[in-house]
């Protein structure tokens, strides 16, 4: 006996995660454009350095030169080529941003979901910890740490940014897990004796996939801004090539007022802003792909 009419639509082919991501990126124009921008900037920062001659000598005769055939984006205070500095200076801010966001989201997902699912003592301790961290102003903490240790590494900065931005996300993930765990499908999973780990990570968290993903993107943006902000304040060591450092140097020497020296501040700034816009456009489109209901529209 076939009670139910045959399904109207033929079943979707099984989808892997990669194909879902690809579909998410190509589902609309702005998402695709965002993904292209993000990939180009990542390529510039991480593949670019291997394609160019990294030798960039100082030259006292070429201070703040305008763009020319020899120096496509002009030169800086030391007469170094701006384009080479742009290509070499992207790796650190982008990496710090991504690492800080991974730490923030990772801490928030684990602490928030465990606290929200188990409640009790774990929850009390987790809440106390997040409340304490929330009272520490992140930027002040970083100011103190950077003045204490002049040679603070990029990884350490990422950890500080990540840990100080996690608490807000811990609280919101905890709240959502508390609400989702009362849903009947979670009870159904308990009836199958699936175990707490599986229930949290395969039943509950995928329902918040879009939310977590968007927060990951926002955390990258915040971390990049925090890093660049600290460079702009002159708090971080001026050793390696870095977009934030370029902005600081241009600002500090007053060169941003020279039209011929404008690329030295404008190009890193534009790349940072473009990267952020690209991420946001891409994430809105990917978020829809993570929700099976919105996926097929």
């Amino acid at each position: 006996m076939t009670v139910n009419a045959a399904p109207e639509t033929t079943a979707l082919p099984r989808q892997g995660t990669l194909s879902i991501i690809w579909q998410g990126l190509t589902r609309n124009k702005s998402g695709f454009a965002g993904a292209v921008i993000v990939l180009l900037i990542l390529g510039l920062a991480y593949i670019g350095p291997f394609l160019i001659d990294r030798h960039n000598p100082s030259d006292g005769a070429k201070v703040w030169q305008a763009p020319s055939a020899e120096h496509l984006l002009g030169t800086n205070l030391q007469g170094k080529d701006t384009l080479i500095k742009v290509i070499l200076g992207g790796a650190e801010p982008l990496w710090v941003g991504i690492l800080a966001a991974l730490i923030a989201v990772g801490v928030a997902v684990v602490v928030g979901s465990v606290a929200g699912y188990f409640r009790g003592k774990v929850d009390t301790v987790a809440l106390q910890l997040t409340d304490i961290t929330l009272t520490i102003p992140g930027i002040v903490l970083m100011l103190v740490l950077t003045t204490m240790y002049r040679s603070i590494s990029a990884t350490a900065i990422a950890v500080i940014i990540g840990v100080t931005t996690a608490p807000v996300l811990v609280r919101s993930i905890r709240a959502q897990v508390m609400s989702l765990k009362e849903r009947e499908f979670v009870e159904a999973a308990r009836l199958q004796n699936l175990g707490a780990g599986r229930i949290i990570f395969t039943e509950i968290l995928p329902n918040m996939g879009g939310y977590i993903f968007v927060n990951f993107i926002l955390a990258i943006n915040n971390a990049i801004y925090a890093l660049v902000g600290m460079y702009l304040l002159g708090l971080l060591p001026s050793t390696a090539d870095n977009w934030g450092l370029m902005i600081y140097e241009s600002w500090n020497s007053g060169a941003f007022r020279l039209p011929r020296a404008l690329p030295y501040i404008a190009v890193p700034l534009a790349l940072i802003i473009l990267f952020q816009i690209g991420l946001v456009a891409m994430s809105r489109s990917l978020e829809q792909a993570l929700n099976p209901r919105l996926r097929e529209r």
Partner: protein
Amino acid sequence: MPETPTIPDSPATAPLLRLSGLEQVFDTKRGKVPAVSGVDLKVEAGKVLCLVGESGCGKTTTARAAAGLTRPTGGSVEYLGHDIHRMGAAEWQEYREAVQYIHQDPYASLNPVRTVLSSLTAGLRKHKKVKGRHEARQAAARLLEQVELTPAESYLDKYPHQLSGGQRQRVAVARALAMNPKLLIADESTSMLDVSIRVSLLNTLGGLRDDLGVGFMFITHDLAVAKYFAWDGEIAVMYLGKVVEHGPTPQVINDPQHPYTKALIAAVCEPDPRLARSKKTIPLRSAEIPSLTALPSGCTFHPRCPLAESGDCDTTPPTLAPLDERRRLACHVVARDHVAAQAGTG
């Protein structure tokens, strides 16, 4: 007296599931709410027990405690003679597989981000009952065929939102079957479906009962459904957290003894207008259900009961005592009259 065994049953003779003196009191801001106060019931393997009663009478609370989803505040739930809350991990796993629960709302009981295949096989994969993707797919397809969702292949990769309510509920039943259960606790599992779909799902469940020998604890507020599904089984009528009448379905439906059961049966709609007009109804003295936080003294039904007498009814709570060989009843007046009638004839 509640039939509490003095000697613990050996697993061979113990019923599949036994609720003894089950109590569930919820602490709320308005005070303690005794949702279930002393329920003694048992379900034998392959048998059907129907719990009926109006909203808020504690049917669902009883069912959830029986399924091990909540911990009762008093009494015990025993699976094959063992208290489920004193079980070790291995025993609990055995109970967990044997007793499955089907939720009322098929729109809430399936995870929206998982496909039918993934929902059906989560337990099988976790407990290593299937190896590899191919085997999992075959197992899921077999389960869908058992609940008459065919062709199974076309449903496996669908998400819940692509299915109708009836189809979802069948998937939920299939998921419960994946554990190869001995007892299915169905909590109003058909009440959210259209009438036509309801009957076909009831037939499917009946098929599982007959073909696979699955026992059922069937919770419903609809006596017609109870009569249709549990004709060979038993009905327990609940009122304000207590069982007031319990017996074989034909007896309870055709010859109700408790005034509350009579009122419930009189309230069932009669499609034939001639019969409907001739049907005599016993009016209740009040349609209002007393609040669980302020239960009436004595028999909790006495403010609404057409038979209530001053004396026992408003002072002493009646116990669920055997009326004849197969039926139990909690009513002072009917029990007394029954004894008097038997004395008269005997």
